[in-house]
């Protein structure tokens, strides 16, 4: 077992166990923290897969953006401590996980991938960041622009929906 596989194993267990925490915890705040842990683990896997740029993006977008939003949602919907908690469905959860995972793994075991032989390894010492940046910014610029505009529209729209409700609640109060 190579070191890198050990590292992979470590992060895999870390992220899967954090995910299980989300599945089983009754406290939504814990769940949010566990989610952060999971996302960090995924970022680590990205690094291991040689795409350090994506790992950074994962950190910035998910941990820095989505998670904060979720926490805000938690705060906003806070009513009383009871609502933090809900009844556990441990058995149901386990059954579901097992059934889905088993099915998929069973499927995977039947599959045999023909991996292509690598003509060149994209991740050299400098990482793929420079190459990826140049490549995306030049020949795939359209996708970036589409994504950018889409994001802008979504953000403005979401802000507008929420602000309207908030305004109304303010005037009602």
């Amino acid at each position: 077992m190579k070191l890198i596989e050990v590292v992979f194993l470590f992060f895999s267990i870390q992220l899967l166990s954090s995910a299980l925490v989300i599945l089983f915890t009754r406290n939504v705040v814990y769940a949010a923290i566990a989610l952060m842990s999971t996302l960090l683990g995924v970022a680590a896997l990205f690094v291991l897969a040689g795409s350090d740029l994506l790992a950074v993006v994962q950190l910035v977008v998910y941990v820095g953006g989505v998670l904060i939003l979720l926490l805000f949602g938690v705060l906003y919907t806070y009513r009383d401590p009871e609502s933090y908690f809900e009844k556990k469905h441990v058995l149901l959860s386990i059954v579901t996980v097992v059934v889905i995972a088993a099915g998929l793994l069973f499927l995977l075991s039947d599959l045999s991938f023909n991996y292509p032989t690598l003509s060149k390894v994209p991740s050299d010492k400098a990482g793929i960041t420079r190459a990826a940046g140049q490549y995306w910014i030049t020949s795939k610029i359209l996708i970036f622009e589409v994504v950018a505009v889409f994001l802008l529209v979504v953000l403005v729209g979401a802000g507008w929906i929420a602000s309207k409700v908030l305004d109304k609640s303010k005037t009602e109060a």
Partner: protein
Amino acid sequence: MIPVDYYIIVSILLFSIGSAIVFTRRNILYVLMGIELIFNAANINLVAFGQLDPDLNGQLFSMLIITVAAAESVVALAIVIVLFKKLNTIDLNEITHLKEK
């Protein structure tokens, strides 16, 4: 280099857990988190296969997914807020308005 199969196994497990969260939790915030996990599972797959591709298309795709997921969660949060304002609950068992009357 770690075999792609490993990644796939991790992603399958992550996807299963995420699905389980979506199916079993009643709090809408948990459901959102589950969806994020599912997204991440998909991303892991893409990145794993993407390292075999010199054109980096897999990574580009997962980049797209990350942004879409971010947008999705923003909209979802807005919807949660509206829902909470309107129905005063985020319990999915109580939000059954889609049912045919």
